[in-house]
């Protein structure tokens, strides 16, 4: 079990709420003065990684 999975479920959900905001909301700028913009696909990939781990965690909690 990795360190991040040791944390309580509550905190994981707060993280989900946070990631939902920082990736899906906020001002998005673009233009050639920018180095890189995480495009929408990347955002969904990132969010999926997180969701997958929350799902895993929930199952761990359900199995005594």
């Amino acid at each position, binding site marked *: 079990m990795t360190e991040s999975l040791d944390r309580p479920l509550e905190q*994981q959900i707060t*993280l989900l709420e946070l990631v939902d905001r920082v*990736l899906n909301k906020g001002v998005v*700028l673009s233009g050639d003065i920018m*180095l890189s913009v995480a495009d929408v696909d990347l955002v969904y990939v990132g969010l999926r990684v997180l*969701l997958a781990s929350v*799902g895993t965690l*929930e199952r761990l909690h359900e199995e005594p």
Partner: protein
Amino acid sequence: MSDPRAPLPGTAYYTYGVVPLDFSSAALDGAQGLGERPVEIVTGEKAAALTSVVSLDEFGEEPLRANLNDRDWLERAARAHEEVLERALADAPVIPFRLCTVYRGREQVLELLSERGATFAELLDRLRGTVELGVKAYLDRARFLEAAGAAPAPASPSGREYMLRRQRERTLDEEREQFKAECGRSSHERLAAVALAAQANPPQPPEVSGRTDEMLLNGAYLVEAAHGALADAVAELEQTYGPRGVSYELTGPWPPYNFVPRELAET
């Protein structure tokens, strides 16, 4: 001699968001941020940007693609991004940028501030003294059914009992969907009435919310920084809908992620 304005080789400017010119740098004392160096305030004529010098090994386009797929990296970045904005929010209004907004160098951040300075300043004026709060509402199916008076299934139902039961279940499913829509709508209206601005986001399915209860409200509310009225409204809603199986979750204060435009016009 190299151009002193040229970006440092191998680095870039991660930009968290924008604050007004009267922002006090002391608010950032102790903020870790991303990168090795302290958070740097880049000041333009009408607004200032909160930035960190970061390594291209981490934030270049290719490494970033890989890093966003790494759960632990994503968590660290999201928390650092939020921490800087939250500390700033304690002192002044902030315009939060999306995670991983990276400029080539300081000069390019200044260019952003000069191109959009008036828009930033106007938006910051409107946001002054406010915070964003999140309210989610969930329906506990078992409690809803209990409140609706659904009888437990008999051990060995007759054919007729079985048919009646199936019919009743279908009616209850419809009632539940109807109740969720109504409760979500009226909860949002009640909360929006005590907020300066309100945003109803689509309720998340259980696999996203990480809960088995069904989400019926996923709202964001812009309120005065002393936000007692919204918490009071949530408590009232709990009293009204709690007996039918609804629970509310209040989060924040957040930087106003839901109340800044997705895209900003040049000014």
